[in-house]
């Protein structure tokens, strides 16, 4: 019981800064999600139309290399170009998010029933018309699941934004680690989990409504 009272007191003390940390976290992660969807999904669609296998594997390899760079090193490299705070955090985490989203979207579009595409060709659809009317609608469930998975990743990776002064829930967690405050560590962690679950749920609802499967 005492634990609960302590924890409620902690919230009364820190409510303002917890809201700030949470807001920063949402802002960073949503920016990354938005940018990576806008950039990666057209790229993946274009890649499925690509005839050049070498080019394809080059793009995948580049996305893969970003994944292997240690976070601190990547952030340190960014400072001369993007300074500190929001911008380098978003750029670095965007590079991390590239690969999972690219791979999922590409695989999704690739896995469409080819006989349907052939039938559409036979009916005289143009390439673009085929994409809009046939391929994308049937690929949406795959693309959505790619977005969902990546979004959950991004929410948890955003805790790393605290390393470069961009704030977010990672800042609260690291502050708790340095200042011996278990309430801070716990709160930062729980809120990050809750945000990830809520977003996943929202995407799930969206998917149900708009997919024709």
């Amino acid at each position, binding site marked *: 019981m005492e634990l609960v009272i302590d924890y409620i007191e902690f919230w009364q003390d820190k409510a303002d*800064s917890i809201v700030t940390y949470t807001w920063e976290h949402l802002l960073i992660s949503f920016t990354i999600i938005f940018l990576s969807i806008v950039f990666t999904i057209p790229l993946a669609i274009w890649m499925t139309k690509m005839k050049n296998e070498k080019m394809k594997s080059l793009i995948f390899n580049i996305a893969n290399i970003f994944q292997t760079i240690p976070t*601190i090193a990547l*952030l*340190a490299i960014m*400072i*001369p170009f993007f*300074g*500190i*705070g929001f911008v380098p955090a978003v750029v670095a985490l965007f590079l991390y998010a590239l690969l999972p989203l690219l791979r999922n979207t590409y695989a999704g579009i690739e896995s469409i029933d080819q006989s349907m595409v052939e039938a559409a060709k036979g009916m005289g659809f143009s390439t673009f018309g085929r994409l809009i009317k046939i391929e994308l609608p049937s690929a949406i469930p795959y693309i959505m699941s790619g977005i969902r998975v990546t979004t959950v990743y991004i929410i948890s990776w955003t805790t790393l934004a*605290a*390393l*470069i*002064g*961009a*704030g977010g829930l*990672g*800042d609260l967690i*690291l*502050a*708790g*680690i*340095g*200042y*011996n*405050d278990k309430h*801070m560590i716990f709160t930062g962690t729980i809120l990050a989990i809750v945000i990830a679950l809520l977003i996943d749920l929202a995407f799930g609802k969206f998917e149900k409504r708009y997919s024709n499967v």
Partner: protein
Amino acid sequence: MKKMVVGIVFACLVLLLAACGNQTSEEGGEIFNYGAQKNTDAKIMGQIVTMMMEDQTIHEVEMTEDLPASPQVMSAIDQEELDFATLYSGEVYNNHFDEEQVEYSTDGEKTIEQAQELFGETYDIKWYDSIGFRNQYSIAISNNLAKEKNIEMMSDLEPYAGNLILGTDNSWIERANDGYDAYQETYGYSFSEANGMDVALMYEGINSGELDAVTAYTVDPQILEYDLQLLEDDMQFFPPYDASIVARNDVIDAYPEVSEVLDSTVGMVSTEEMMELMHEVDIKDRGTKEVAKEFLQEKGLLE
């Protein structure tokens, strides 16, 4: 057949676990555990303790490095996962004790006495007297800025602070006694921004001009390397962080020779000496072991 395989695997597991349980050193002594935080000075002290222990007793020491911060070192000592560590007297004000138990002070003597007493009782450890170096928070700005505006003390920052961006570690902004809120009250000014970040990136930031001021730690070699000016704490705001070796009581009670070795760390390394050692490691990228060994040999404490 299948049963036999399962049996063999199980037996192997049991042997493996047993091997973890009661290790002995090559000379038939114990193997103790030393834990170091992320800061290089704690790692160098770990190497010093390890080498002296192996040189002067039959025991060995294993090091665990890069624990996130002192509170985690404390927990690990409490769990009996660690036997020794380097800790700092100012840690006593870091949210470990209630306000009734601990009296906040920036006096060196008072601080280490309270740390020895309170941590000693709570965690059943011996907190040795200071190693001789101090690693506390301070404010640093670039030398150019200091010369240009003639800033020597933290008070001198007041007219300019509103246009300066501060970089600090992730916990300073939230600290109660010696954190940013209390600093603003004491010195009566705020920086335009205060960003919590990784300490290595904090120094990168001030070096590349993205930050104007940082909460440097007094032994960090980056202060000299990046031509920074430590400001004098004219209001006596920051508490002292005197480094000491700590050890679990039941270890030193059972092995007096261990306590003797740890005792010899008292007064062993001055702040200047530690800065030099850290310069070798952090700036010249040499290994902590090599640097610590050289230091001990120069002092005549090791063959």
